[in-house]
C-alpha cells in the first residue's frame, strides 16, 4: 500500500523541529519525495494541514485484566482503544489473571495479537512461576518464545535474597527486568498514601516512603547483578530521588510514571470516588511536582497510560473493596500535551517520553517520521481539537477514569503502523 500525507507539520526527532512537508509511505516504509516520484497514484491521500505528524506512541505499562486470553471481543476493544489513542506499540506484563510464566502462553498471546490486534505487543514474561517466590520461570524458553524482558507485574518486590537470585538469572539470559516497586509488608494497606486525605476519609494508608523501600532494595540487587532494571509507575518524590542517584552513578536503570500520577494527587480524590482508586495510589501534590521535575531532568524516561480496565461490578463497591485501576490508553497523548503546556516544556521533548524514550528502553529500532527508509509508524494529531472526556464515549471496555468531565486538547486523527492505516477518526 502506498500512501501520502500532505502538508502536515512533521517532527524530526533528531533536530526536534517540526517541518511542513509531504510524508510518503511506500511499501510500508517512509520514502523521500524523489523516491515517491515513481508512484503513479496513491492508495490513500491524507490532508494533514494544521496537523502534527510524529512517531506512533509506545506504552510501557498497560494491563488487560485477563480479558486477552478469555474474551476476544473485549480484548479487541482494548486494542482498538489503544490505536485510537495513537499507540502503535504496547508492553504487556504479567498479572494475577495472565501469569505469562510459560512459553506456550506467551506464544498464544503473540499469535492472537498478531491476528486481531493492530498494536504491536511486546511481552514481559513472569520472573517466577505463578508470580510466586518459590520457583524461577524458564526464562530461556520465555525469551525464545518472544519475551523481551521479565517482570512480576504489580506483585510486591520479593525479599532481597530471592530478588537477587531472580536478577542474576535474568542477567544471564540477557533479559531486562520490569519492577513495579511495591513493598510487601505494606501491600495490603496501600489503598492510599498517608496524609490529610487518608486521615479524613478514614481509609487504610501507607507512609510515602514505601515505594522508595522497594526501589532501594531493587537498586542494590540490580547493582550487584548488573541487570537492566526498569521501574514502572513511579509515583513518589523519594523514589525519584533514588533513581536519580542511581543514574548519576552510571547504573543501567530507567523508569516511567503514568498520566494519573503526572496530573493528579490525593488532594483530587473526591468523596470515595472509586475512579481515583489506583495502584500505586495517588500521592501528595509535592510528590506530583517531583514527578514533573524528574521528567524534565531526564530521571523519568517515559510516561505510560497505566491503562488498567475494570468492570463496573468491580468498581461499584466501597472504596476499600473496589478494584484498582483506570482506563488510560485514549487519554495518554492529550495528557502528555497538557503537561507540556502546563510546564512549558517543548512539544518534541514531551513527545519523546512516549516515543523515543520508551523505544530506547525496549531497544526498538529508530523511530523517526523524517527518516527515509524507516518503518512507517506514525500518528497524525490535531492539536487544536478540544474535547471533553466522556466516559460513555471511551472505546475501552472500562469506563472508569479520574479525568472524566475534563476538557483536554488534541486528538488523534489517523494512525499508521507498518505502513498500514490502522486508525482513522472518521470511521
Amino acid at each position, binding site marked *: 500500500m502506498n500512501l501520502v500525507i500532505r502538508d502536515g507539520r512533521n517532527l524530526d526527532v533528531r533536530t526536534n523541529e517540526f517541518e511542513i512537508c509531504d510524508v510518503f509511505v511506500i511499501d510500508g516504509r517512509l520514502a523521500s519525495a524523489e523516491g515517491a516520484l515513481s508512484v503513479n497514484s496513491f492508495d490513500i491521500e491524507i490532508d494533514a494541514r494544521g496537523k502534527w505528524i510524529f512517531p506512533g506512541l509506545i506504552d510501557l505499562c498497560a494491563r488487560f485484566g485477563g480479558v486477552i486470553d478469555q474474551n476476544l471481543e473485549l480484548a479487541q476493544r482494548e486494542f482498538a482503544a489503544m490505536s485510537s489513542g495513537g499507540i502503535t506499540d504496547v508492553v504487556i506484563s504479567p498479572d494475577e489473571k495472565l501469569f505469562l510464566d510459560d512459553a506456550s502462553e506467551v506464544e498464544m498471546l503473540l499469535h492472537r495479537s498478531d491476528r486481531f490486534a493492530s498494536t504491536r505487543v511486546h511481552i514481559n514474561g513472569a520472573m517466577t512461576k505463578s508470580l510466586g517466590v518459590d520457583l524461577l520461570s524458564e526464562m530461556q524458553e520465555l525469551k525464545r518464545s518472544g519475551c523481551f524482558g521479565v517482570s512480576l507485574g504489580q506483585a510486591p518486590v520479593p525479599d532481597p535474597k530471592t530478588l537477587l537470585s531472580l536478577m542474576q538469572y535474568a542477567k544471564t539470559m540477557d533479559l531486562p527486568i520490569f519492577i513495579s516497586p511495591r513493598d510487601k509488608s505494606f501491600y495490603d494497606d496501600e489503598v492510599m498514601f*498517608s*496524609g*490529610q*486525605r*487518608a*486521615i*479524613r*476519609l*478514614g*481509609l487504610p494508608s501507607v507512609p510515602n516512603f514505601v515505594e522508595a523501600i522497594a526501589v532501594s532494595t531493587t537498586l542494590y540487587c540490580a547493582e550487584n547483578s548488573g541487570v537492566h532494571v526498569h521501574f514502572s509507575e513511579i509515583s513518589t518524590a523519594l523514589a525519584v530521588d533514588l533513581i536519580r542517584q542511581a543514574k548519576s552513578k552510571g547504573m543501567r536503570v530507567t523508569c516511567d510514571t503514568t498520566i494519573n500520577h503526572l*496530573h*493528579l494527587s490525593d*488532594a*483530587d*480524590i*473526591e*468523596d*470515595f470516588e472509586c475512579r481515583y482508586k489506583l495502584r500505586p495510589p495517588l500521592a501528595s*501534590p509535592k510528590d506530583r511536582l517531583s514527578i514533573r521535575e524528574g521528567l524534565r531532568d531526564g530521571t523519568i524516561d517515559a510516561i505510560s497510560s497505566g491503562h488498567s480496565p475494570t468492570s463496573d*461490578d468491580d468498581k*461499584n*463497591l*466501597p*472504596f*476499600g*473493596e473496589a478494584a484498582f485501576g483506570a482506563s488510560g490508553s485514549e487519554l495518554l497523548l492529550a495528557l502528555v500535551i497538557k503537561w507540556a503546556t*502546563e510546564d512549558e516544556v517543548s512539544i518534541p521533548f514531551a513527545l519523546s517520553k512516549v516515543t523515543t524514550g520508551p523505544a530506547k528502553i525496549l531497544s526498538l529500532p529508530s523511530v523517526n517520521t523524517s527518516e527515509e527508509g524507516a518503518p512507517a509508524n506514525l500518528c497524525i494529531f490535531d492539536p487544536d481539537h478540544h474535547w471533553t472526556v466522556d466516559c460513555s464515549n471511551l472505546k475501552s471496555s472500562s469506563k472508569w477514569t479520574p479525568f472524566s468531565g475534563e476538557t483536554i486538547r488534541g486528538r488523534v486523527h489517523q494512525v499508521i503502523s507498518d505502513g498500514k492505516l490502522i486508525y482513522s477518526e472518521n470511521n
Partner: protein
Amino acid sequence: MKYKGAVMNDSQMGERGLRHLLSLENMPKEIVIDILDRAGEFLSAASGGAKKVPVLRGKTIFNLFFENSTRTRTTFEIAAKRLSADVVNLNVSTSSQSKGESLLDMVNNLVAMQADMFVVRHSQSGAAHLIAKHVPSGVHVINAGDGRHSHPTQGLLDAFSIRQYKNSFDGLRVAIVGDVLHSRVARSQIHVLKTLGVDDIRVCGPRTLAPETVSDLGVTVFHEIEKAVLGVDVIMMLRLQHERMSGTLLPSPQDFFRGYGLTEERLLLADNDVIVMHPGPINRGVEIASSVADGPRSIILPQVTYGIAVRMSVMAVLLGNSL
C-alpha cells in the same frame, strides 16, 4: 490542573436541604443546630409522657447492618418506632451477602420494596456514600458507622449531650482520648465540635493510635494524658477494639490503661465541672476506671437516652426534607 482539595460531602445535600446524613464534615452550622433543637423537643415530649409521635407514619425504614452492633441498631429501631415508622432489621452478614449478592443489588431490591430510608452500618469507609449515590431521589440514607470514616449520629448525640451540660460551645476545651486513628467516632466528634465553634480540641493516645497526621483534622495531638486533660471541660473516651489491644499497636490492655486509662487521679487534673463521655460499650479497666465510669462526672448513660432523641430528630429532618 486543579490543586484545590476536592469538596467533601456535597453528596448528602439535596434541593430541599439535607437529604442523607453521611458525615459531619463541613455540615452547615444551621443544620446541626436544627437537628439538636428538634432532638431537644423530642426529649421534652418524651419526658412529658409523649414518647411516640406520628411524624413518620407509613414510612418504611430498613436497618442495614453489615457489621454486628446490637446497641446501635436497637437505638435506631427505637427511634424509628417512636416516630411511628415501620422498621425492618437486616443483619446482612448472615443473609444475602453470603449468597454472593452485591451490595448495590441488595439495595436496589429493597428500594423496589418501597423503602424510604436506609440506616447503614458497614466495615468499609465510604459504604454509605456508595449507597446514597445509587438510591432514587425519594430515598434517604443515614450512615450508622462506615469503617474508620464517620459515625455522624454519634457525633451529633455527643454534641447534644455537651449542650445539655454546658451553656455554650464557645471557649470549651475538649480532650478525646484513645484510638483516634481507627475511630469513626472521633472523626465525627471533631467535625461537629469544630462546626459548633470549639477551638481547643485535643486528641491523645500513643503514636500508634494517635499519629501526628491526625492534626490535619484541626486538632492538637498529645501523647501524655496528664497534659491532654489539663483544665478541660469535656473528656471523651474512645472505645478500644479488642483486636487492637495486643499486637504491634499496643502490647496489652493493661499497658494501655497504665498510659491512657481515665482514672480518678487523672480526672482531678481537668476542670472541676468536667463531664466524662464514652460512646459505649465501655471496657472497664481498659479505657476507664469503673469508679470514673460510674462516678458523678460521668454522663455515659444520659448519652444513651439522648441518642434516641437525636436519631429521631435526624430521621424527621431527612424525611421532612422530602415532603
